[in-house]
C-alpha cells in the first residue's frame, strides 16, 4: 500500500468522524426538538436540507467514495482497529439507549413517533462513532 493511500485513509477517517458528529447533532435536534415545541415540519425540512448539504459536501469535496472504492475496511492496521472498536462502542451505546427507551417508553409513547425514535437511534449511533474515532485518534 502506498503512502498516498494511507494519507487518504487518515483524511477520510478524520472527515468521517466529524461528518458523523455533525449528522448526530442534526438528527438529535430533529428527534428531540419536536417534543419540546410540539411541531416538527419546519425542523424536518431544515434537517433534511442540512443532511443533504453536508452529505454532498462530504462526497464532492472529498471525493472519498471514489478514492476509497467502497471498501468497508481500512488497509492501515491501526485505523482498521480503531474503526472496529468504534463500531463496538456504537453497538454498546445503541444497546444502552434501547434499554433506556424500553424502560421509559410508556411515558413517551403518546408523544413520540416512530420517525423520531428512528432519528434518535441514528443520532446516538452517529455521535458515538464520531466521538469514539476522535477520542481514539488523539496522540
Amino acid at each position, binding site marked *: 500500500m502506498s503512502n498516498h493511500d494511507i494519507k487518504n485513509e*487518515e483524511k477520510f477517517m478524520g472527515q468521517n468522524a466529524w461528518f458523523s458528529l455533525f449528522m448526530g447533532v442534526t438528527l438529535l435536534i430533529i428527534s428531540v426538538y419536536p417534543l419540546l415545541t410540539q411541531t416538527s415540519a419546519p425542523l424536518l425540512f431544515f434537517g433534511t436540507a442540512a443532511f443533504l448539504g453536508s452529505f454532498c459536501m462530504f462526497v464532492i469535496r472529498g471525493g472519498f467514495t471514489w478514492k476509497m472504492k467502497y471498501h468497508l475496511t481500512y488497509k*492501515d492496521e*491501526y*485505523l482498521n482497529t480503531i474503526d472496529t472498536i468504534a463500531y463496538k462502542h456504537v453497538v454498546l451505546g445503541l444497546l444502552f439507549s434501547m434499554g433506556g427507551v424500553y424502560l421509559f417508553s410508556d411515558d413517551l409513547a403518546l408523544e413520540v413517533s416512530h420517525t423520531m425514535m428512528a432519528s434518535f437511534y441514528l443520532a446516538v449511533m452517529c455521535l458515538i462513532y464520531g466521538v469514539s474515532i476522535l477520542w481514539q485518534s488523539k496522540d
Partner: protein
Amino acid sequence: MQNQIAKYRKEAGLSQQELADLIAVSRKTISTVETARFTPSVIIALKIARHFNTSVESLFTLQEHD
C-alpha cells in the same frame, strides 16, 4: 509490552511521520505503538525491525503481566 522504537527512531534522526512513510503505515500507528497503546502485527514489527537493521526481540520486550 515495552518497546524501544522511539529510541531507535530518534537515534536515526527520524520523525514519526518519516518512519511511518518509510514502512507504509499511518503516523498514528507509530505514535500509538511507541506509547504502547497499540500492539502491532508481526508484519509491522518485522518491517520496523528490518528498517532499523535489528531484531524484533531487541525492539519489543515482554513484561511479566503480558
